[in-house]
């Protein structure tokens, strides 16, 4: 038994060797076929891998170009540029307007110097322009300050002693009736189409907010203006009746800007 076994073992080992040798010797024969199969598999995988990589590269590139030029961003830019252009154009036009107005005034002056009857017209035009706020109001006038009344602990309602827009309306109407040529409130020139809104403790004039005290300046005949305001039962009496502190002062030189300066 022992004797038989040994050669067997050896044979097995030899067989293994032979097998591996056989495999080695077989390989060159099948090499071309094996290689081609292997290569085809590798080729397919490589092509697919390359395709995926290239495709995703392409995709991310598209996205990058998209994000840098997103429609919203472009639109915003467009609007901004438009706005700037419009603003510049506006400025140009405003300058042109000022020049033309100067020209017109020069013409008018020329005419009026030539013919006496035009003097009256020119003055009228100047008057109207003052009212419209198109020319700077300079001259003697009055300055009225409306101040909120002192805090009164007996009244719980503060509305009873603060300045409302209705008070200002009264004052303005009286001033206009009395022939004020130009009116401004806290430095804001009033136009014929100005609006005044009461907005809590402040008033809004043409979109600008002003707190109390309100300084109303009016260019015009001082005597007429003051006496018209001081009529008994007139504006001042009404205002004082409503706990508002009113001070009037005459000024020999009140200056107001034109509307376009603001």
């Amino acid at each position, binding site marked *: 038994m022992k004797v038989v076994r040994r050669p067997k073992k050896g044979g097995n080992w030899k067989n293994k060797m032979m097998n591996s040798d056989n495999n080695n010797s077989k390989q060159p024969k099948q090499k071309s076929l094996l290689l081609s*199969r*292997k*290569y085809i*598999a*590798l*080729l*397919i*995988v*490589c*092509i*697919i*891998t*390359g*395709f*995926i*990589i*290239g*495709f*995703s*590269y*392409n*995709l991310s590139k*598209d996205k990058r170009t998209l994000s840098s030029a997103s429609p919203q961003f472009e639109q915003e830019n467009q609007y901004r540029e438009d706005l700037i252009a419009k603003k510049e154009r506006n400025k140009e036009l405003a300058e042109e307007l000022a020049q033309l107005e100067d020209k017109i005034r020069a013409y008018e002056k020329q005419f009026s110097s030539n013919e006496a009857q035009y003097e009256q017209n020119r003055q009228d035009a100047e008057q109207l322009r003052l009212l419209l706020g198109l020319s700077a109001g300079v001259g003697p006038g009055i300055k009225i300050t409306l101040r909120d009344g002192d805090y009164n602990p007996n009244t719980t309602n503060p509305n009873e002693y603060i300045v409302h827009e209705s008070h200002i309306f009264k004052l303005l109407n009286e001033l206009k009736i009395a022939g004020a040529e130009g009116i401004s409130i806290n430095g804001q020139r009033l136009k014929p189409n100005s609006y005044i809104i009461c907005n809590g403790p402040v008033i809004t004039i043409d979109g600008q907010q002003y707190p109390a005290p309100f300084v109303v300046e009016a260019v015009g005949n001082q005597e007429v203006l003051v006496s018209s305001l001081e009529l008994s039962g007139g504006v001042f009496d009404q205002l004082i009746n409503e706990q508002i502190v009113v001070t009037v002062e005459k000024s020999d030189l009140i200056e107001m800007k034109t509307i376009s300066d603001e």
Partner: protein
Amino acid sequence: MWLPLLGLIFGVVLGILTDIQIPSVYENYLSIAVLAALDTMVGGIRAQLQQVYDDKVFISGFFFNIILAAGLAFLGVHIGVDLYLAAIFAFGVRLFQNIAVIRRLILTKFENRKLNK
């Protein structure tokens, strides 16, 4: 030996030239596909160098990995968990391991050649 490389280049060119738009929802899948493909390719090279390469394993691994990763990502999208991260992690780790093995194999080969000389 140069055929796979040519194939790779061909594939890249093809991919760049294709002009298909896919919805951004599916971009996760694409990233996973890239990783799976790269992983399989590097794995194939390693197997080749270790002389255990089998094209059946290679091909089936390639497609199976991609499908599995895409399926995982799909599941993740639908249950609201970023499961595709798991695939990315697994593929990334394996990619690095395979590349390390390849590097070592090449280094030893190089040294052996030097010693033989």
